[in-house]
């Protein structure tokens, strides 16, 4: 990762302690525009905590985070979104009594900082992209699970993030639905960095050229997708049956 230019997003020693437990432990991460990174690891590996640290839900116990060279470690969520880091949450967070269009309009107005008419035009594009154009006038609370997931993604994209964080946006979907989401993620890669946490290998393989593995709060692997994927250590970490692990007990 010897960067020619400064990376878009840079995390150094990012740590979050909950009591005595380090949910993420000194994680370093460089993201460049155009990167699409799959993030995997067993449950409790610290993937969601890392995304929460990047999105601003949690303040890190230690470490620093810069976006385009600017320190954003202490920025609260709304300021983080405005500066260009947005996340689609694992459990869709919609404004149920607002319409689908209004749901997407808010991040375009406040996150991307667009004017009203510009935002309306942009939202029309985003809703078309995620396939919600026909439902634009519906209340968000009336949507089904797939559409709620689409709306969650639309809201994140509407903020025009340079770093897009995806937290298990395909979980609970059927295979054709996952394929639809994959196509969407592929179309979003240009001009931004994407980090996608997902337990569905084929979804990540089809969309990401980089794979990062976390275990027990620490980053264990980070590299070209195929290389990391073929790594024999990966299976043992992911399945939790490492040889030396059992040997040590």
């Amino acid at each position, binding site marked *: 990762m010897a960067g020619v230019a400064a990376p878009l997003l840079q995390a150094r020693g990012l740590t979050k302690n909950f009591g005595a437990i380090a949910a993420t432990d000194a994680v370093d991460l460089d993201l460049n525009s155009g990167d699409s990174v799959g993030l995997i690891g067993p449950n409790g590996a610290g993937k969601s905590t890392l995304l929460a640290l990047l999105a601003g839900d949690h303040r890190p116990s230690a470490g620093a985070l810069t976006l385009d060279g600017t320190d954003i470690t202490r920025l609260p969520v709304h*300021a983080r979104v*405005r500066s260009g880091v947005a996340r689609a949450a694992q459990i869709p*967070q919609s*404004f149920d009594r607002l*319409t689908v269009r209004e749901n997407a309009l808010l*991040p375009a*107005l406040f996150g991307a900082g667009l004017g009203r008419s510009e935002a309306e035009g942009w939202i029309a594009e985003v809703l078309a992209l995620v396939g919600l154009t026909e439902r634009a006038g*519906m209340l968000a609370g009336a949507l089904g699970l797939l559409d709620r997931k689409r709306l969650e993604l639309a*809201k994140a994209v509407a903020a025009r993030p340079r770093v897009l964080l995806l937290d298990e946006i395909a979980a609970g979907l059927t295979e054709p639905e996952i394929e639809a989401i994959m196509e969407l993620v592929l179309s979003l890669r240009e001009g931004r960095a994407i980090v996608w946490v997902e337990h569905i290998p084929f979804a990540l393989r089809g969309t990401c050229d980089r794979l990062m593995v976390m275990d027990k709060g620490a980053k264990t692997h980070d590299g070209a997708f195929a290389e990391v994927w073929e790594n024999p250590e990966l299976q043992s970490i992911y399945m939790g049956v490492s040889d030396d692990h059992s040997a040590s007990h």
Partner: protein
Amino acid sequence: MIRPWEIAALALGLAAAICGATLIGSGSLFLLCEILVIFLLAQMWNLLAGFAGQISLGHQAFVGLGAYTLFLAANETALPLWLVLALVPVAVGLVAIPLGLVMFHLKHAYFAVGMWVVAEILMQLAAKADWLGGTSGLVLRPGGNMLAGEPERVVFAIAAFCAVALMVGLRVFLRTRLGLATLALRENEAAAASAGIDVRGLHLMHFALTAAGTALAGALYYITALYISPNDAFQINWLIAMMFVTVVGGIGTLTGPALGTIILIGAREAMTAWGFTGGQYWIVMGLLAVVVLLLAPRGLWPAIAARRGATQHATTEETEA
């Protein structure tokens, strides 16, 4: 931004306020002033709780603060009473900002109850303060003289125009980007922050604005009363009126509080005329609140609007209905 008919409504409201103030008899004006004050108070509480999603059980603090500020500034300075009245919401709104910054450390129910404690503390402080007349309170004597003429006429004109202006203003506000953000706040604060909305800042704005409006309404009321005491100005009955009117009428709707005010005051006047006591009135109001919340949890106005076959789903339109 503002639509032609809304400007027309403002003009009509102004004309009605002036005509009413000059033509209506003094006795009816007192009642109308009270109705308008209750409506203004309820609409402020509705904006905070029904639209911005922040429940305060202590907004009576701002009724008392507004009224005491008015009495003190009018009595102790040579400033004209109506100028003092105009400055009251500004002063109380500014005081509400640091108060909000402290109180926002409490969340949800803790914040709501914490505000109640603030109101009780202010009542006790006012009762202990000799320079505020202690428990016996203050008489309104602008510049040291008894108030001449019929202040209720001016109070009515101001309150009536404010009521119309508030309805129009809130309609316009809900169409703006901040209005949309306010509705988002009520729905989901975490998602609002993720959309780039400064949740705390927006809450603080609503807290200060509703404090200012509540203070103005309180000051208007106590001009007609001419007398203020801590037990009256900071009493929880102000809050009960705001909540009853908003919740029974329809929380999170603009028309609901108007309907609620008519019910609250209309029932009181009717029951008094029929010879019922104040205690019996509150029993009936309590029962009414229970029945309404069981049959129409969102309040009467949304239930009526739904019955009229309103099938439109638009959200801002619905809340404006």
